[in-house]
């Protein structure tokens, strides 16, 4: 009995070391970023527009732009993604349509984001005349997030116990009542978790927005989705290509701001998920 137990302890120790390494790596990134960003930290940094002088450069337009993009992405991708998943799982399971659409969606998840940028440029910016606007950016990022939202929502819906559906159908519920009253509430925590991962990724995307023509220099914060496209990732990219050493600090500052935005979003999602689970118990 001693042998296997010791072996298990060995594996446990190894896992602990690896986990500690991950935490250390994460802390290192945070400390390096924060250290670099330190010199840029002043209240004006959050609100000021970008500038040719690093000392005066702020992330006002980029921060507002990223919040707009995040909101637009969620508002567009979540309903469409959940709707697609519900259709595939509840209305057309194991049909030819489901197989084709499902396969297509799964493959779309593997397409590089810069390719979505090219498609977004042709479709949204030029084809639908949105130009290099936040709306075009939001639409492009929504399309980028969509496959992941669909795939994770399908998995969450599939994990809902069949007995729950049958109990509702057996009591004379319509398909929509079953979906709305049983399937979606039970699947919601999984949908939120998976979708959050998708939105965290798209909010950090610079490549597709650069293809669309994101502004590297804006003097005002965007107020509507029709305003020019600005975002934190593209701002970081723009600053990091400048030769002056001082811009490294503001780029790091913008990076920290991006992490904070994503942290807030994930905390909000956790709260929503907790409420839903608490409410249904």
């Amino acid at each position: 009995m001693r042998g296997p137990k010791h072996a298990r302890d060995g594996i446990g120790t190894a896992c602990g070391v690896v986990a500690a390494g991950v935490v250390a790596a994460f802390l290192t990134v945070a400390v390096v970023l924060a250290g670099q960003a330190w010199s840029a930290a002043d209240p004006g940094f959050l609100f000021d527009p970008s500038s040719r002088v690093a000392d005066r450069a702020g992330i006002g337009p980029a921060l507002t732009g990223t919040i707009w993009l995040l909101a637009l992405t969620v508002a567009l991708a979540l309903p469409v993604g959940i709707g697609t998943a519900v259709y595939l799982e509840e209305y057309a399971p194991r049909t030819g349509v489901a197989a084709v659409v499902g396969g297509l969606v799964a493959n779309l998840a593997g397409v590089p984001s810069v390719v979505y940028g090219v498609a977004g440029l042709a479709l949204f910016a030029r084809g639908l005349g949105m130009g290099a606007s936040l709306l075009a950016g939001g639409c492009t990022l929504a399309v980028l997030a969509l496959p992941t939202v669909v795939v994770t929502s399908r998995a969450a819906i599939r994990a809902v116990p069949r007995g729950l559906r049958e109990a509702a159908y057996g009591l004379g519920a319509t398909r929509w009542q079953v979906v709305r009253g049983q399937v979606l509430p039970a699947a919601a925590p999984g949908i939120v978790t998976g979708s959050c991962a998708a939105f965290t990724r798209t909010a950090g995307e610079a490549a597709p927005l650069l293809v669309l023509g994101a502004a590297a220099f804006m003097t005002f914060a965007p107020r509507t989705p029709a305003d020019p496209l600005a975002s934190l990732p593209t701002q970081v990219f723009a600053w990091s290509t400048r030769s002056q050493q001082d811009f490294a600090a503001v780029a790091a500052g913008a990076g920290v701001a991006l992490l904070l935005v994503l942290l807030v979003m994930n905390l909000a999602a956790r709260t929503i998920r907790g409420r839903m689970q608490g409410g249904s118990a």
Partner: protein
Amino acid sequence: MIPVLAAEDLTVRFGRRTALAGVTLEVPRGRIVSVIGPSGGGKTTLLRAFNRMNELKPGVTTTGTVRFNGVDLHGDEVDAVEVRRRIGMVFQQATLFPRSILDNVVFGPRAGGHTGDKLLELAEEVLVAVGLWSEVGEDIDRPAMQLSAGQRQRLCIARTLALRPEVLLLDEPTSALDPAATARIESLVHSLKRDHTIVLATHGRRQAARLSDFTAYLAGGELIEYGPTESLFTNPRDRRTESYLTGRIE
């Protein structure tokens, strides 16, 4: 008199697997018909054919007819949702909705568009009928998940009764219960016979003998024998039935 339920040459296939093969049988009004037979013999499929639950599974094909009070259940003008409200079903696994006892009881009427105080009266009535009203101390806002296994299954029966169905389909309602809880359900089923026609799928031969007026023996998707419970048990006509009843086939 028209039988409440009548299956004629009923065949149900899931993909290439035949679950029911040409079953013909009639369920007389106000009686308890039990369906016995080995696992995978088609008991559940037959019950589900009576309220059109089979079609919820992908890849199912049904041929032959099922009539409810003489009306073809698969007719063009028949709505499957309406069928399930009039022919209620209780499943083997007592799956409750993760809400209150009250929400579970009135789920069906609410889905049918009923609201208001009448729902509370209805809830009390059916909870009394299944003997849960006094047990839960009239506290029907409690989470349903707090109930014991036997209570859960009785809540499932109450939930189905709240639809005021003509027919009750009970799919092995006691298979997951201990003897005491089983006895409670059995006496409940017996009392429900007054107002309902009941089809009871059961693994327990003795349960079928105790409760039912007629018994059908299903094996391999075929109806081997169907007749009054007493004569089927004491004097089976088919040797396969006899083997099953004497325990030589499980």
